[in-house]
């Protein structure tokens, strides 16, 4: 928890930082600071899914240059308990500072709640290339009114396309995966297991 005892960032602190993503050139100093900030942020990898950037995932909701210099970044956390939230804030700060765009103000905004519908088309391509099936449209009924449903199996199960061979013949192995945002699947055509970014 934040101040006294357990600090989430340390769960990730021992890992080497993921390499910046190739997201195209950053405009030179002197160019429009907003465009520069977005270009820098597009290369900041998500600490838990480093194949995609924090912009690809839709976590960055705004990057506004401040009148007195510096930039204000608005982030929307993904899951309530996501241990990467603080690490994301730190890597955003470090990347913008390193590009000379600081001082950096980070605002965390909870509402509207993050949804996988905010993952960009480029982000979806990158997930697929990394062997992670991107999410389909977030389900309606997230407001809590829909009647209880069970995880569908067999013919009723929603189809998730295998990120390797593109076959729709896949099945869920486990509803939870290595991170809060993913479930585990396997392809019945190429027999490879893969992760699926859960629609949320």
């Amino acid at each position, binding site marked *: 928890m934040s*101040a*006294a005892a357990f600090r989430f960032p340390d769960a990730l602190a021992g890992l080497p930082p993921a390499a910046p993503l190739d997201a195209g050139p950053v405009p030179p100093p002197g160019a429009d600071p907003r465009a520069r900030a977005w270009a820098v942020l597009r290369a900041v990898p998500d600490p838990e899914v480093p194949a995609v950037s924090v912009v690809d995932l839709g976590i960055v909701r705004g990057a506004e240059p401040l009148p007195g210099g510096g930039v204000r970044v608005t982030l929307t956390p993904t899951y309530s308990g996501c241990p990467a939230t603080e690490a994301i804030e730190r890597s955003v700060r470090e990347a913008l500072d390193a590009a000379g765009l600081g001082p950096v103000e980070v605002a965390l905004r*909870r509402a509207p709640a993050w949804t996988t519908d905010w993952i960009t088309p480029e982000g979806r391509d990158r997930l697929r290339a990394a062997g992670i099936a991107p999410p389909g449209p977030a389900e309606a009924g997230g407001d*809590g009114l829909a009647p209880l449903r069970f995880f569908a199996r067999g013919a009723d199960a929603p189809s998730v396309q295998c990120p390797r061979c593109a076959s729709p013949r896949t099945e869920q192995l486990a509803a*939870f995966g290595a991170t809060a945002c993913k479930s585990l699947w396997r392809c019945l055509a190429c027999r490879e297991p893969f992760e699926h970014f859960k629609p949320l």
Partner: protein
Amino acid sequence: MHASPIPDPAPDAQYLLRTGDTCLILAQRLAEWCGHAPVLEEDIALANMALDLLGQARALLTRAGQLGGPGRPVRDEDQLAFLRDERDFRNLTIAELPRGDFAVTVLRNAMVATLLRQLWHRLQDSRDAEVAAIAAKAVKEARYHQRHAADWAVRLADGTDESRRRMQAALRRLWPYRHEMFEAGDPVDEAAAASGLGPRWSELREPWHADMDALLAEAGLEPPADTPFRSTGRHGRHSEHLGPLLAEMQSLQRAYPGGVW
């Protein structure tokens, strides 16, 4: 010795602590499964759900600490989690019961997630914008938890003779604790309803039963006959199981006050 930081919180803070503490204590219980679940996938699932619940608890405890009432200092999430005494925790008793076997864990998760999903749904309309934002996120997580737990409950009830026997035993054990969720005429609930902070929990009884009845029907399980037993955790009067849980959860802060990881 530490004085408990909010011995007598304002009704709004108490209202939020009921949910926040339920999430926190259940997260702690679920974390006990880490390395012990029947299969690796469920080990990971239980840890993931514990993490979601812990995140929800952190957000609500932070907010509750800001609503301590006139003349009371703001308390942060850590003070509330690690320095309060047993009587000042407002979680539902069902959350603190020992983790039991996998059937108990599955059924408890189903009962609590069903409540939380209904509660978060209503809290999205809270007059407190921060609470509404927390709820909008959490309702989706609770739905996923509910579905996962319900799925397992049906699978176990429909499995072997042994898994079915254990589900029936879990139902006999846990079903009486549902009454605490929906107790009517409670002043903290009334204050929250009046201020627009959130619904009376008693209003959640019907939708909760609609979902749980569907689950039990799908599983082919019969609820046990009703008894006069009523648990009282959300008033701070707990079972004998919360104390040892807190002794473990709070031991570091008690031994090294203010220590940082």
